C-alpha cells in the first residue's frame, strides 16, 4: 500500500492552491452578497485546466485519473474561498464524466472539448418537486420511439441550470413502477423548442452557484441525443452519483482544511486571560477533531477514487465518504465560528459564509439520512 502522491501531483496541488489564492478570492464576499456567477473566474479556472481534468486527451483534456482529479479539487477548494464556484466546476466535471462514459463518439466530439474549455456550461437535471431523495420515482416523461421522442415535465434545484448550454436530463421512458429499464438519459440543448427555466433560486449559501427550475414542454429529442442506451438511466445515475460523491467530497475536504488552518492561526494569535486561547483544551480539542476528520476523510476519499480508477464499484465508499466529510465540514464551520468568538459571527471573517455553504453539502448528492440508508442497505440491513 502506498499513501504518497507523485511529485507531479504534489506540484499540481501547490500550483492550484497558489493560483486559487491569487486569482479567485478577490470579491468573494461581494459576489456572495450579489449572488451572481463569477464568469471571469470560471474562465480562469478553465484556462488553468480545471475543467478538463477528467476529459480524455483526444478531446482536448488532461486525461487525469480520479485520484489526481480529487487531489486537484481539494487544492482548489483549499485555495478558493468561493465554494459556489467550486460547486459549479464539480457539476461541470460530473457532466463531463457522464458524457465521456456513456456518450456516442459524435456526442463526445461535440460536447467534451467545449465543456472542457469552459466555452459551454453543463447541468444535470434529475431532482423533481415530488422526487427528491426518492429520485427514481421521477415523473418527467419521454415518449415516442427511436424516430423521435417528446420530453415533458419539470425539474428543480438544478445547479448551473440558469447558465447551462447543455443539460443532461433523466426521464421516465416506461410505464412500470420500477426504475429498472424505465428511465432514460438525454442531452437537451438550451435552444431546444419547449425548454424553459425559472429565475435563479435565492439560496441560504453557495450563492454564486446558479440554480433554477427547468420546464420541458414536449421538447423534441432525437435519437442522437440519447445518452447511453434507452432504459439505462438508472445505471447511468448509479455510476454518475459515485463519481459525483467522490468529486464533491474532494471539494469539501479542501474547504475543511482551509477552515482548520484559519482556526489554528487564530487560536495561536488571539490572547485572553494573558494567554493564547488555543491553550484552552476546550478549543484545542475542537481543532483536534477537525484534523482527525480531515485525515479520516482523506483516507475514505482516496480509497473511493482508487476504486473508481481500477474500474471498480464504490457505492458503499462513496456514501461513507460523502456522509462523513459533509457532516464533518458543517461541524468544523460551526466550531470555527465558536473558536473565533464574536469576530467569527461577522461577515468579514468569512466563516459564516463557509457555514452557510456547508449546510447544502449534507443535502445535495443525496442527503445525510439517505447516505445512512444506503450504508445500511449495503451492509444487508
Amino acid at each position, binding site marked *: 500500500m502506498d499513501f504518497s502522491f507523485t511529485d507531479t501531483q504534489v506540484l499540481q496541488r501547490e500550483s492550484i492552491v497558489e493560483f486559487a489564492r491569487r486569482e479567485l478570492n478577490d470579491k468573494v464576499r461581494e459576489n456572495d452578497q450579489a449572488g451572481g456567477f463569477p464568469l471571469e473566474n470560471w474562465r480562469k479556472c478553465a484556462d488553468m485546466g480545471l475543467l478538463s481534468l477528467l476529459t480524455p486527451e483526444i478531446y482536448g483534456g488532461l486525461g487525469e485519473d480520479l485520484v489526481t482529479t480529487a487531489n486537484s479539487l481539494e487544492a482548489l477548494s483549499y485555495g478558493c474561498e468561493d465554494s459556489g464556484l467550486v460547486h459549479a466546476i464539480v457539476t461541470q466535471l460530473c457532466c463531463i464524466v457522464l458524457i465521456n462514459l*456513456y456518450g456516442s463518439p459524435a456526442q463526445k466530439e461535440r460536447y467534451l472539448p467545449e465543456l472542457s474549455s469552459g466555452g459551454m456550461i453543463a447541468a444535470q437535471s434529475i431532482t423533481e418537486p415530488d422526487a427528491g431523495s426518492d429520485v427514481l420515482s421521477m415523473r418527467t416523461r419521454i415518449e415516442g420511439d427511436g424516430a423521435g421522442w417528446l420530453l415533458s415535465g419539470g425539474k428543480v434545484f438544478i445547479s448551473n441550470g440558469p447558465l447551462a448550454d447543455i443539460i443532461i436530463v433523466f426521464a421516465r421512458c416506461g410505464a412500470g413502477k420500477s426504475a429498472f429499464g424505465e428511465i432514460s438519459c438525454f442531452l437537451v440543448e438550451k435552444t431546444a423548442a419547449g425548454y424553459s427555466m425559472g429565475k435563479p433560486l435565492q439560496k441560504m449559501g453557495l450563492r454564486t452557484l446558479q440554480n433554477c427550475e427547468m420546464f420541458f414542454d414536449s421538447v423534441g429529442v432525437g435519437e442522437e441525443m440519447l445518452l447511453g442506451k434507452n432504459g439505462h438511466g*438508472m*445505471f447511468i445515475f448509479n455510476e454518475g452519483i459515485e463519481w459525483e460523491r467522490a468529486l464533491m467530497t474532494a471539494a469539501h475536504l479542501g474547504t475543511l482544511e482551509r477552515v482548520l488552518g484559519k482556526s489554528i492561526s487564530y487560536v495561536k494569535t488571539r490572547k485572553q486571560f494573558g494567554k493564547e486561547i488555543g491553550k484552552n483544551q476546550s478549543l484545542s480539542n475542537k481543532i483536534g477533531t477537525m484534523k482527525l476528520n480531515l485525515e479520516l476523510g482523506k483516507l475514505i476519499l482516496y480509497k473511493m477514487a482508487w476504486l473508481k480508477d481500477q474500474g471498480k*464499484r464504490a457505492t458503499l465508499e462513496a456514501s461513507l465518504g460523502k456522509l462523513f466529510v459533509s457532516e464533518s465540514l458543517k461541524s468544523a464551520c460551526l466550531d470555527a465560528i465558536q473558536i473565533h468568538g464574536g469576530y467569527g459571527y461577522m461577515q468579514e471573517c468569512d466563516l459564516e459564509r463557509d457555514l452557510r455553504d456547508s449546510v447544502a453539502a449534507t443535502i445535495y448528492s443525496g442527503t445525510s439520512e439517505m447516505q445512512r440508508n444506503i450504508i445500511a442497505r449495503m451492509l444487508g440491513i
Partner: protein
Amino acid sequence: MQDDAKLIEFIKTDLARGKVTGKLGANDDLIETEILDSLGIMKLILFLENNYAVKISDEDLTLENFTSIMSINSLIQRKRAAQGA
C-alpha cells in the same frame, strides 16, 4: 446447483429483506415484486463479481438479465463461458 443456493440465499437475506416469506422460485419476477431496486442491483452486481469471478459490463445491464434467478444464472453461465472459466 450450489451456485443457485448461494444466489438464492443472498437474494433472500440481502435483497428481499422480508419481501419473500416462502420459497423463492427460479422464475419469480424480482423486479415486479420489488425485490430488486436501484440500490439492490448495485449490491447484486458486486455480489456476482465477487463470488462468481465475472465482470458485469454496461452491456449486461438489461432488464432481461436480471428479472429472475434463472436469468441471473444464465447471465453468469454466459459470462463464464465467454471468459473461458
